[in-house]
């Protein structure tokens, strides 16, 4: 194989330096846009840019070809500044067909670059997209720098020597587009060439075709007169360290594995496949050499119950799902909290209610996580704020679960789960050691073992089967404090309900206080979960405009950080942007009697920075 530099010579065209770029790749779900996006992200991260991504795909595996419903998109922002979102307005949009064009063009900045596969604008393509006229001819694309590239024809020509059929040749189109985009932004092709080798190593003709398509795309940029120059985005100034790219579900999985190791436990996952949580099951099942045991259960209920069983046995037990599955797990979680066993429940939220919008993001399970079980059944709730933050969230959740002997709910969402960002790899030695102990066995001495005897944190001992002399029975019937025997005593019930709540309230002393970014008065924007990046960027923008706006992000929602009320009271106005109709706002109003104002979007899409800026200004 020739080296990449020979095949991909540096451009001879002038190069313009820009601080950051937002690109969206849009095509049919079979067009390989997610792959293209992932490659662009990785190579940008490797070149030292800060990156943030937003993949957006349909729920159907193969939605009808060429239709608007079948459009799959991948947005990435890469920048020489520290960034927190995948970007708002697009600098460039690549469209593989008319459906992709009409559904995405609204997000392209005026005079932004629009690259289209002009071969896929035939009348049959227009019909599939339910268009009368070609958007390339009816003025739709006039405000943009539109570049018509006959990608299908050029790709077929480029791969002809491999002898692949037209059908297979057409599958290489995304690599042609990739070559062009890589050329335009001066991206390194080396990681992608390595990827092609690894992925198609056993199909040499396919590997060769993809390389040829990539090169043809690159060469097209170099020779076409449509592009007078390329763009350069230099490396971002990130804190020193070794970095890698992580996606949310991956970081959660690694956080869980790390937490298990740090506590000297082996991990058990009981899970049932569901979008967008399944990747946690996939990732964890790859790491059996850490002692990870994954159980793909027959249903969501079996998944949570198996986790409770594993927790009873002394493992680090986890169950993962999304909203519909968490709804099914309610009774099992109730038992988990009654048994006062440590475990982790992960809800990767998606659009609801019911089946809702499986592949779209939303924050509408907060109240379910808080209150969605029968009886008085509080659980600690922590929400990850970004893909990389998932790692730390998993570790913290396990610390609280084991310290207070309680199942902890982690909220993520589809946006975080599938989004990627650079992660500074921690030095294992700096990670917290998680102390977990089990009472030792004993010979019978006439005294009764008390499974519900509490320590200063109100936590009960985690006595596990196999331990001599500590035999005890647990169950869902109300327990007598201390003995753990079944009790119908009215006073005991009130005491136990209050104790279980108090235990979680106590966790406030363990978690970090709420931090504020910005002035001590004026307006406070309060965010939680995956809207962190958009809120932070919006507030920064407003601060740069000289406005008196501060930002506080809540990772722990139950309990609230100990200083929450004190922080809130400093401000004239509390604004709570959420991708739901006001669930955290309801909790804030309830808890503090503060008349918080909501910014609420329920479209299955994350906030854009500009809409938040406008809404915060007018709130």
């Amino acid at each position: 194989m020739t080296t990449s530099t020979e095949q991909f010579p540096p451009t001879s065209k002038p190069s313009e330096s820009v601080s950051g770029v937002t690109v969206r790749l849009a095509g049919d779900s079979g067009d390989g846009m997610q792959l293209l996006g992932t490659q662009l992200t990785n190579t940008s991260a490797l070149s030292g840019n800060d990156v943030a991504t937003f993949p957006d795909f349909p729920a159907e595996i193969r939605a009808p070809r060429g239709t608007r419903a079948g459009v799959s998109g991948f947005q990435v922002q890469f920048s020489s500044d520290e960034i927190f979102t995948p970007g708002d307005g697009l600098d460039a949009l690549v469209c593989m067909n008319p459906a992709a064009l009409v559904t995405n063009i609204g997000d392209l900045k005026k005079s932004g670059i629009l690259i289209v596969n002009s071969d896929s604008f035939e009348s049959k393509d227009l019909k599939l997209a339910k268009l009368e006229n070609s958007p390339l001819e009816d003025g739709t694309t006039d405000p943009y720098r539109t570049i018509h590239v006959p990608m299908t024809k050029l790709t077929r020509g480029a791969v002809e020597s491999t002898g692949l059929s037209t059908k297979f040749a057409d599958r290489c189109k995304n690599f042609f587009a990739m070559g062009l985009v890589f050329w335009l932004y001066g991206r390194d092709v080396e990681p992608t060439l390595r990827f092609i080798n690894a992925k198609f190593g056993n199909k040499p003709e396919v590997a060769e075709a993809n390389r040829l398509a990539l090169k043809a795309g690159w060469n097209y940029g170099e020779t076409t007169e449509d592009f007078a120059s390329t763009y350069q985005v230099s490396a971002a100034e990130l804190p020193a360290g070794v970095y890698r790219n992580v996606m949310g579900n991956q970081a959660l999985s690694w956080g869980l594995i790390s937490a298990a190791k740090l506590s000297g436990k082996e991990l058990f996952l009981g899970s049932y496949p569901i979008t967008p949580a399944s990747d946690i099951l996939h990732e964890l099942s790859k790491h059996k050499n850490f002692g990870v045991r994954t159980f793909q259960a027959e249903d969501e209920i079996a998944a949570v119950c198996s986790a409770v069983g594993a927790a009873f046995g002394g493992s680090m037990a986890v169950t993962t799902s999304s909203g519909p599955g968490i709804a099914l797990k309610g009774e099992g979680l109730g038992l988990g909290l009654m048994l006062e066993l440590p475990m982790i429940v992960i809800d990767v939220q998606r659009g609801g209610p019911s089946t809702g919008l499986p592949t779209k993001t939303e924050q509408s399970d907060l109240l379910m996580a808080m209150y969605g079980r029968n009886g008085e059944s509080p659980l600690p709730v922590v929400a990850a704020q970004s893909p990389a933050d998932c790692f730390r969230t998993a570790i913290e959740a396990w610390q609280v679960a084991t310290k207070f002997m309680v199942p902890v709910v982690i909220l993520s969402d589809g946006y975080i789960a599938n989004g990627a960002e650079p992660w500074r790899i921690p030095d294992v030695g700096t990670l917290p050691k998680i102390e977990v102990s089990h009472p030792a066995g004993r010979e019978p001495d006439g005294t009764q073992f008390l499974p519900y005897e509490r320590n200063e944190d109100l936590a009960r001992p985690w006595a596990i089967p196999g331990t001599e002399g500590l035999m005890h029975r647990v169950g869902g019937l109300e327990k007598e404090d201390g003995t753990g025997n079944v009790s119908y005593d009215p006073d005991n019930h009130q005491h136990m309900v209050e104790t279980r709540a108090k235990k979680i309230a106590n966790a406030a002393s363990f978690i970090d206080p709420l931090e504020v970014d910005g002035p001590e008065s004026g307006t406070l924007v309060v965010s939680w979960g995956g809207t962190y990046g958009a809120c932070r960027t919006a507030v920064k923008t407003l601060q740069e405009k000289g406005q008196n706006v501060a930002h506080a992000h809540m990772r722990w929602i139950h309990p609230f950080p100990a200083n929450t009320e004190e922080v809130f009271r400093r401000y004239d106005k509390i604004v709570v942007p959420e991708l739901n109709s006001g669930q955290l706002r309801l909790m804030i109003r309830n808890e503090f009697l503060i008349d918080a104002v909501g910014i609420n979007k329920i479209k299955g899409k994350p906030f854009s920075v500009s809409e938040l800026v406008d809404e915060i200004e007018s709130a």
Partner: protein
Amino acid sequence: MNAELPVLKAKDFESDQDVRWCPGCGDYSILAQMKKVLAEIGARQESTVFISGIGCSSRFPYYMNTYGMHSIHGRAPAFATGLKTTRPDLDVWVITGDGDALSIGGNHLMHVIRRNLDINIVLFNNSIYGLTKGQYSPTSKVGAVTKSTPRGSIDHPLNPLQVALAAEGTFVARSVDSSIKHLMATLKRASQHRGTSFVEVYQNCNVFNDGAWDYAKAKATKDQTTVVLEHGKPLVFDGGTKGIRLNGFMPEVVEIGGDVSESDLLVHDEKATEPHLANILSRMRHPQFPEPIGVFRAIERTTYNDGVNEQVADARGEQGEGDLAKMYTSGDTWTVA
């Protein structure tokens, strides 16, 4: 701790909790035989765990001086799966009833059996909902008049053994609460089997469905109404006067003597690889047939817990013990100075 473990008696498996079943309930006998069996097989209190769902039978764990979990309705097999997979060193028993196992928990029962998790399931079949005070259950007969079926049940009942066999059960057995010796022997066999042991026990609910199994329990009739299965032996009952013969795929009752000798009878084979014979036997119902009691099927198959733990051991053997730093840096990384 002493190197030599003390010999435990049945009494040692009794917890300090008062037993709260109705006087005369069949559950008492099952509890008593279980304690005796545990003592006999040399079970340890600390390494035995009883997991139950919801229902009268599911109070069972509270009465045992072992580890126990009284879980939620129908889900005991799922809790057991998490526990046994991570703690294969424990002896796990699931105690369930006909409503718990076959109605609300039907899904879990089927899946735990097909996975062949190494646990013992004892299903107390009283053909009624006792704890909720007398509604018909999935094993109630068509026409059963109960609180929720004043005009008689129209649901066709499930046959628990058929469910277990359809789920590829590796150990499938039936016994009767009052047949003390037989019940003990059956529980003992169940405890020795590696894989899911499924034991249906005919249990009398003397409050809401009294006498449902009288034909199989009464001294005067049980010899004619049940046939005891023994591996390798012909199916003989009624004091050796009658037997079961196969006519094509259909069993038939024959009188022994005349042209019929024992050698014409169906010989029980619990180890048959295919479950056809067990299926035929499990479909023999009173009053057309004597109902077989004993072990219908006992075959070997890898257990779920062994499978899971072997994969973990293999992964460790091939990749070495998991190393966090190695995992974090797998794939592309870059350094910011």
